[in-house]
């Protein structure tokens, strides 16, 4: 157990309190605890990232080609093509927060050492996708609704989600020490996750203008299949891109922490002399 948990400081056998802290945290069985070893995770990520990035590039290219050949909407004309990037961005904005909430649970309940890394590195990516969803929505809104921004229910709740992402990033940055910040950020992420449905509901109560749900419905999608397939391809492509980016960000974060640990050790050794 102890050996497995020493992954952070694999280059240095004795890593002081940092390892002691990490070694208590490897609880759980099966594949997730295998991944708790950062070295093993790094190896997996090294293998997966090129595949995911390549696949995402191919699917995105196909999706782009398909969405330019998809029929124009009878009302909205060519501007409907913004949908093929706007909708995946909005989905990913929500997916990313869900992933962060799951990681927060991982940090607080199972104390999975990588959950904290996953949470921290997902936040900026999620914020970027949310921002892109807002921007593309705004560009779509200008010709359709005649204005860049309306205080409509969905826009507003996505905007609130964006603010929550920024708040989480700000908190991570402000706290600095990864051990301390991990739990605080996890608590806040979970509280935010519980709040999202409430915010959604309250904002719906407050105002609504956006079109209703048209894909995930009990009576089947109301969107034409010729538009649905390019959209699905784009969504899949961007999801793969998201996971590739996320793995890369996690890898960077792990390396950053190793560097910090090694620097600290070097400094301690220099003091000892």
């Amino acid at each position, binding site marked *: 157990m102890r050996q497995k948990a020493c992954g952070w400081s694999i280059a240095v056998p004795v890593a002081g309190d940092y390892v002691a802290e990490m070694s208590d945290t490897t609880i759980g069985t099966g594949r997730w605890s295998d991944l708790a070893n950062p070295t093993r995770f790094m190896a997996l990520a090294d293998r997966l990232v090129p595949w995911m990035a390549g696949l995402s590039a191919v699917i995105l290219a196909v999706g782009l080609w398909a969405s330019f050949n998809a029929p124009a909407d009878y009302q909205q004309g060519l501007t409907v093509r913004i949908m093929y990037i706007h909708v995946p961005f909005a989905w990913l904005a929500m997916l990313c927060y869900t992933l962060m909430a799951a990681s927060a649970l991982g940090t*607080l309940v199972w104390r999975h050492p990588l959950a904290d890394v996953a949470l921290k590195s997902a936040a900026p990516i999620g914020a970027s996708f949310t921002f892109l969803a807002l921007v593309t929505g705004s560009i779509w809104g200008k010709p359709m609704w005649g204005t860049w921004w309306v205080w409509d229910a969905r826009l507003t709740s996505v905007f*609130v989600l964006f*603010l*929550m992402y*920024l*708040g989480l990033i*700000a*908190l991570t940055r*402000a*706290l600095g020490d990864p051990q*301390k910040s991990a*739990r*605080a*950020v996890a*608590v*806040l992420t*979970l*509280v*935010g996750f*519980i*709040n999202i449905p*409430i*915010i959604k*509901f*309250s*904002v719906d*109560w*407050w105002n609504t203008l956006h079109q209703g749900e048209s894909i995930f419905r009990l009576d089947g999608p109301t969107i034409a299949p010729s538009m649905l397939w390019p959209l699905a391809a784009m969504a899949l492509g961007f999801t793969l891109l998201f996971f590739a980016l996320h793995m890369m960000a996690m890898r960077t974060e792990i390396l950053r922490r190793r560097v910090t640990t090694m620097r600290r050790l070097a400094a301690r050794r220099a003091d000892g002399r």
Partner: protein
Amino acid sequence: MLALYIRDVRIGIRAGGGALVGVLFFLAVVAVVPFGVGPDLTLLARIGPAILWIGALLASLLGLERLFQADREDGSLDLLMLAAERHPSVLTVFVKCLAHWTTNVLPLVVASPLLGLFMNMEAAAIGATTLTLLVGTPAIAFIGAVGAAVAVALPRGGLLVSILILPLTVPVLIFGVSASYGAVNDPQPFLPPFLILVALTLFFAVIGPLGAALALKHATD
């Protein structure tokens, strides 16, 4: 628990007049609005409930960062958390939130009818706004406790706490304001948003202390 409540209330009233500063801030925010939108009395009457709610929301964020920080500095927070077997830390946090609300937020609610007069609001609107503030502001205190708890280790976390908390208080603001309007404007209902506001307060009374206690436990060990 009662002793903790009384202690916190006494500290809140005594220490540098934190409660009074909140009321003054509320007064200043509301007084600035007419300068911004113009002295049109009908317009002020129309936006009055919203202004009072926003002012109260901002003013109740003021003292939040001190909710746990003062106790952390003198070490009593550690003692409170250590006593978790005798008094569950969730309950401790809950009581601290109530004390914070009594000292910092209740004065705002008391002051709001007077400010309602400044805003040229009708008697019914003033009554409804005061009532919704009375019912809704505890929710802000409870949800604020989470923000105060996660930022407890930061020396100047006040602004950060506000940034973290404001998005989460959107539902409270929406239902508080819409209930206030519901009492005056005829087609809009009063009771449904008011009841939802009550539900939000009860909900956050559970979620807030739970989250805050969890964050404090990790911050102190």
